[in-house]
């Protein structure tokens, strides 16, 4: 579904992505793991077209994303740090996104998270007055709202309270069951255990490995993802 081919991106002297190639298919739940600054967010942003790679290309459903923009209709993106127009209220932001994405008005909107996070009572609050956690809730609600085929979640549970993060995890699991592709970056490995089917490990802009979780468990002899990754990190 998403294929990255020798993608290279440099920021000045820093190589954020170095010849990264990966293939993600429908129904998978892929965890992007790696130390800080290893290029996870840059990879995610390249898939979204927010960062333009120097060389290599990315295809979505067989189409090169450079010449296409409609493919983003099928993606729900939750950024690591959601930045929203400060003067708008939550209600206005949600309304604007519905207005932009639901052009013909025929998409069935998925407002489960808006309800679960109790955002309805906060609709008149301006974005600049929100706490980090509430902003994350808005980001999550927007990512799931339009029933996308692909969910890209960048540090989804960072900043969320335990109740909210449990709600979000349940929602991710529920969408995964429907056969959607879910891409998650996270440092909290313990919560990925029961979610992910594949692991991509990155370091210094290089993709070190991309394998299924069963294979990773077999190779490292560890059952827990956190232990497995730790043993990989020690080897390097």
């Amino acid at each position, binding site marked *: 579904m998403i294929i990255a081919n020798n993608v290279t991106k440099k920021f000045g002297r820093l190589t954020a992505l170095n010849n990264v190639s990966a293939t993600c298919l429908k129904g998978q739940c892929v965890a992007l793991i790696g130390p800080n600054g290893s290029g996870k967010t840059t990879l995610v*942003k390249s898939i979204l077209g927010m960062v*333009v790679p120097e060389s290599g290309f990315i295809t979505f459903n067989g189409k090169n994303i450079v010449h296409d*923009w409609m493919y983003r209709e099928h*993606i729900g*993106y939750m950024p690591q740090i959601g*930045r929203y*127009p400060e*003067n708008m209220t939550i209600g206005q932001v949600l309304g604007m996104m519905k207005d*932009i*994405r639901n052009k013909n008005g025929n998409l069935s909107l998925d407002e489960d998270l808006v309800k679960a996070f109790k955002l309805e009572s906060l609709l008149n609050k301006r974005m600049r007055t929100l706490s980090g956690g509430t902003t994350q809730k808005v980001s999550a609600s927007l990512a799931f709202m339009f029933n996308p085929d692909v969910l890209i979640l960048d540090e989804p549970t960072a900043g969320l309270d335990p109740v909210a993060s449990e709600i979000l995890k349940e929602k991710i699991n529920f969408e995964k069951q429907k056969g959607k592709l879910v891409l998650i970056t996270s440092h909290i490995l313990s919560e990925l255990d029961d979610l992910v089917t594949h692991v991509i490990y990155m370091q210094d802009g290089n993709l070190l490995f991309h394998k299924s979780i069963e294979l990773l468990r077999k190779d490292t002899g560890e059952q827990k993802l956190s232990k497995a990754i730790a043993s990989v990190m020690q080897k390097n």
Partner: protein
Amino acid sequence: MNKIIKYVITDILRNKVVIIYTLLLLAISFTVFNLEDNTSKGLLSLMNIVLIVVPLICIIFSTIYIYNSSEFIELLVSQPLRRKQIWISLYAGMAIALTLAFTIGIGIAVILYSFTATGIMLIAVGLVLTLIFIAIALLAAVHTRDKAKGIGIAVLLWLYFSLIFDGLVLFILFQFADYPLEKAMLLLSGLNPIDMGRILILLKMDVSALMGYTGAVFKSFFGTTTGIIIAGFVMMLWAVVPVALSLAKFKKKDL
């Protein structure tokens, strides 16, 4: 496309700067016409204010607005929208808001007090300058991530077009005083939209007789219909080229 323009305009109207700008222009235009008995004198004073104030407000407001919309832009870029559409909508939204402000602020007074060819030319030049300086602001803002630097570049550009360029022209004139420079001046004026606007308005005012031989050359060129069409075309280029350049840069920008 219209949806984004709608959000840009509601956002601009909400932050009230444009409304203050409109009121400022209204106050200036009515004061100027009421101070002078002779409306054509009033028009001349108004022209000098318009040629300074309009570019300054347009370029600074637009630059700051683009930086303040960075969240908005970031949010839209990850959505199924073309980058071109986002950028052009941003330009169109600002252009609509600021030209509206100019039309209300200057247009009403000019139509009431001095609805002549000169007055209409003043409104037209003001509107085109608005479009040009928003375009230049887009270009200044897209090139640097640092807000303070971007605003600094915008101020410098305004300073260049309103003061430094004239200084350079004077310098050239005095250095090459022995040579016939009239045709060269015609070309030079095309390099600065503010100068071009000033010439277009002055030629409608019949004070061009005081401008010597260069004025006569200007009159023989800009006085004709073809001359005005060419001048209008060059001014439009001043708006279109910066927008196109900034768009090309924005398409490749990392957000």
